[in-house]
């Protein structure tokens, strides 16, 4: 077993354990902290996959913004969140069965795919030395997001979506004067 495999297996175990804790902890603040651990494990996976920019974005946006927003919401609704004596609703048995079914059918369907156990070929870009490859990939990603021949339309739609979500969140959570 190589060092990379050991790192992957340790990270995978951490991700699955903390994800299980997220969905089963009674105290929601603990669940949110386990969510931070899960998201951090996913950032480690992005590093293993040589998507370093995405790893940084994962830490900034998911841990820095989304998880903190979750903790704020838990605190604003805290009285109910802390004395939530029953974690799961009466559908928990069906939910567990459905989750196991989805997992096993996903693995069976993907296992039939010919490239399921493929290995990664080294990341290369023509004419770029290997020590500048990371910068080249980030530059390529940035250019593709504003390139009319690539993904400028999804990028602009995403920015409009974020603006609409921002205004919508303010409107929904606005406390009208009595």
């Amino acid at each position, binding site marked *: 077993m190589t060092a990379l495999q050991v790192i992957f297996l340790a990270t995978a175990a951490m991700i699955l354990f903390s994800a299980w804790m997220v*969905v089963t902890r009674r105290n929601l603040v603990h669940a949110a902290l386990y969510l931070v651990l899960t998201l951090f494990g996913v950032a480690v996976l992005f590093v*293993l*996959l040589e998507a370093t920019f995405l790893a940084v974005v994962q830490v900034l946006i998911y841990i820095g913004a989304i998880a903190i927003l979750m903790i704020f919401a838990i605190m604003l609704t805290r009285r109910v969140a802390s004395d939530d004596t029953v974690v799961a609703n009466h559908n928990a048995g069906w939910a567990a069965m459905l989750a196991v079914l989805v997992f096993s059918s996903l693995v069976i369907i993907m296992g039939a795919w010919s490239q399921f156990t493929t290995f990664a070929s080294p990341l290369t870009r023509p004419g770029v030395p290997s020590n500048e490859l990371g910068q080249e990939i980030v530059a390529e990603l940035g250019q593709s997001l504003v390139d009319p021949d690539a993904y400028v339309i999804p990028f602009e739609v995403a920015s409009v979506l974020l603006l609409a979500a921002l205004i919508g969140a303010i409107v929904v959570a606005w406390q009208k004067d009595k």
Partner: protein
Amino acid sequence: MIPLSWYLILAAGLFSVGLYGVLSRKNAVGILMGIELMLNAANINLVAFWRYVDSDSIAGQAFAIIVFAVAAAEVAVGLALVISVYRLRKTVAADEIDMLKW
């Protein structure tokens, strides 16, 4: 060397745990956390497919960035709804929020 199958199986497991959380959690914020787990599982798959199958282009990473933006929008609106419902009904338990149920 890590085969692609390890990433795919891990992502399938993470997705299933998130699905269980969405379906079984009583608290609305807990449901949103389950959705975040599922979106992260999808992102692992996108980046793994980019690295193993299509690393000559940048499409997988660009798609993952769009998923980040959608997740941020979703959680902002979702938490605003939770806070608004809490203010009206003094509860965030999903099975007690049944104003639309006739």
